[in-house]
């Protein structure tokens, strides 16, 4: 077993892929904390689906399969999607969840139309498109891994630099506006960072599962702390751990895709957190309830005992 692990570490290709998925998990965990606090957990899901038309249009315009171009297309259509969601909730009676669902399905529907159009046009070069959508970290090119790592580091750095601003915007936008901060600007920046994190994540885990990279580590981290700084760091660590675990486990067994294993590793961390976290975990809550019940019971017993004594005394006084 140990020799197998050593084998991975000494294989430079594997080392880079491990590094890439670690950084990806770190970056999306950090960004995910902010989207979770801003009650936009499913935005990642919508953005991932909305990326499809952008990728297809990028391919149609350029005719080449380049990850860089795909990313630009995906980022542009992701921005269009966030704008659409905002516009629908702002100017109609449609609620946030339905607006999210409408944008998600309609963008994806348009994307599927474009994708089939590309496939039927007989361009034999399109095979990478659906691979991009369903994600396969193990078969990623080394250049993709570099790009993924670099983008993730950039995300973490921006979050670290603008931590105070993002914190204020996430918790109390009204107060932030009162302080004279450009709230709209920072909100847009956070959205842009979310779009970038999603677009990078699609490659590694696929459209459907990329939402989990943002949500699950952040929610797991929330169970351990009430401080944003600690939560962001923990979410990053959880994300990185699940990225590494996913890559390692899926490379030991054949026919085991990386994305789903990564997501399940994150879910396992979440399950541990919800059960065993101090104070907010289910076990802690259960113990607290038992202790409270015991305290109440013993105080009741003391109470009845004292009242019996006083009752007894009163009777003796009567005599």
């Amino acid at each position, binding site marked *: 077993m140990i020799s197998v692990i050593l084998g991975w570490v000494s294989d430079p290709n594997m080392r880079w892929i491990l590094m890439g998925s670690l950084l990806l998990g770190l970056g999306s965990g950090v960004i995910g904390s902010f989207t979770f606090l801003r009650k936009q957990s499913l935005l990642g899901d919508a953005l991932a689906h909305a990326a499809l038309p952008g990728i297809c249009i990028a391919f149609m315009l350029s005719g080449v399969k380049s990850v860089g171009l795909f990313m630009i297309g995906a980022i542009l259509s992701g921005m269009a999607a966030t704008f659409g969601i905002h516009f629908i909730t702002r*100017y109609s009676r449609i609620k946030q969840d339905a607006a999210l669902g409408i944008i998600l399905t*309609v963008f994806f529907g348009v994307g599927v139309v474009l994708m089939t159009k590309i496939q039927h046009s007989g361009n034999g070069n399109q095979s990478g498109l659906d691979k991009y959508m369903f994600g396969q970290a193990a078969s990623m090119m080394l250049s993709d891994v570099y790009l993924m790592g670099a983008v993730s580091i950039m995300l973490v750095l921006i979050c670290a630099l603008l931590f105070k601003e993002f914190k204020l915007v996430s918790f109390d936008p009204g107060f932030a506006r009162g302080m004279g901060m450009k709230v709209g600007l920072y909100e847009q920046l956070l959205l842009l960072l979310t779009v970038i994190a999603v677009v990078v994540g699609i490659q590694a885990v696929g459209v459907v599962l990329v939402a989990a990279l943002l949500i699950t580590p952040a*929610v797991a981290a929330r169970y351990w702390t009430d401080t944003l700084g600690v939560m962001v760091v923990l979410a990053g660590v959880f994300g990185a751990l699940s990225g590494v675990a996913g890559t390692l486990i899926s490379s030991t067994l054949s*026919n085991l*895709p990386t994305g*789903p294993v990564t*997501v399940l590793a994150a*879910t396992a961390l979440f399950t541990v957190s919800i059960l065993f976290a101090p104070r907010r975990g289910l076990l802690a809550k259960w113990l607290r309830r038992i202790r409270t019940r015991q305290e109440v019971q013993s105080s009741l017993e003391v109470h009845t005992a004292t009242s019996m004594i006083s009752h007894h005394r009163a009777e003796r006084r009567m005599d």
Partner: protein
Amino acid sequence: MTDFWIILTGTLVAATSGILGCFLVLRKMSLVGDAISHSVLPGIAIAFMISGSRDSLLMMFGAAVLGLITVFLIQLLQQGGLQSDASIGIVFTALFAIGVIMISRNASNIDLDLDCVLFGEIAYVQWDTLIIGGYDMGPAAIWFLGITLFIVLFVIGLFYKQFKICAFDPALAAAVGIPVALFHYLLMGLVSLSTVASFESVGAILVVGMLIVPASTAYLLTDRLSMMLLYSVLIGALSSAGGYYFAKWLDASIAGSMISAAGLLFLLAFLFSPHHGLVARLSKRRRMKSVTI
């Protein structure tokens, strides 16, 4: 005849989802449909492993069970104090991941294609016919979807008042003694049933789209639930017919075109709805401004 069968399938999916979608949109749970349509995957995979064939009934059963488990888990996390969208996200991604792993681990002895589950292929509907006692009864999908629509209509029709009160005011419903949780699970059960029934023939994305988009469009056009249900079904039918011809003209995915058509209708309602549309709102605001000045 191909045109007829495909449009009929699309319309049946649209009608079933359109009716249920109205209740989901009103209860602010539109994304539960999205979650269910993804998390039924392990159910389908398990049914495959047990039967070793594409037995539709067993598959439907497995998927329906998983649909209810999904709803139960989401509810459990929510009661633990988690935001509803976060709990939806965690549950469906985890279950979908399990499904993908099951399928890819057994890829050699399961002829289940992931693309097929997610996108479906409505174009082949008429070739997969139901044969009973040697008689060709027509496309199997039409039968399944027709029965599902009948069940949905029957249950909603029977408890229309209860569903209505639960949709608009759950607190009032609880106060007058309606078992809110029971009706919640009943609605979710119907959603997973319709998702599963539509799955094979049209794919997950069309179901999710038809659950959310026509119902939201109808929500912009009327303030009465009965009219909203009717509009939702009509809009769904219109988008499946329009989408089909659009796809034929463009030689592209039929399900994708149907969603795009529904999106186009939503955009029209968003802009030009008589009371809730953007144009009406803006002109009303302008009128108010001129009056005050």
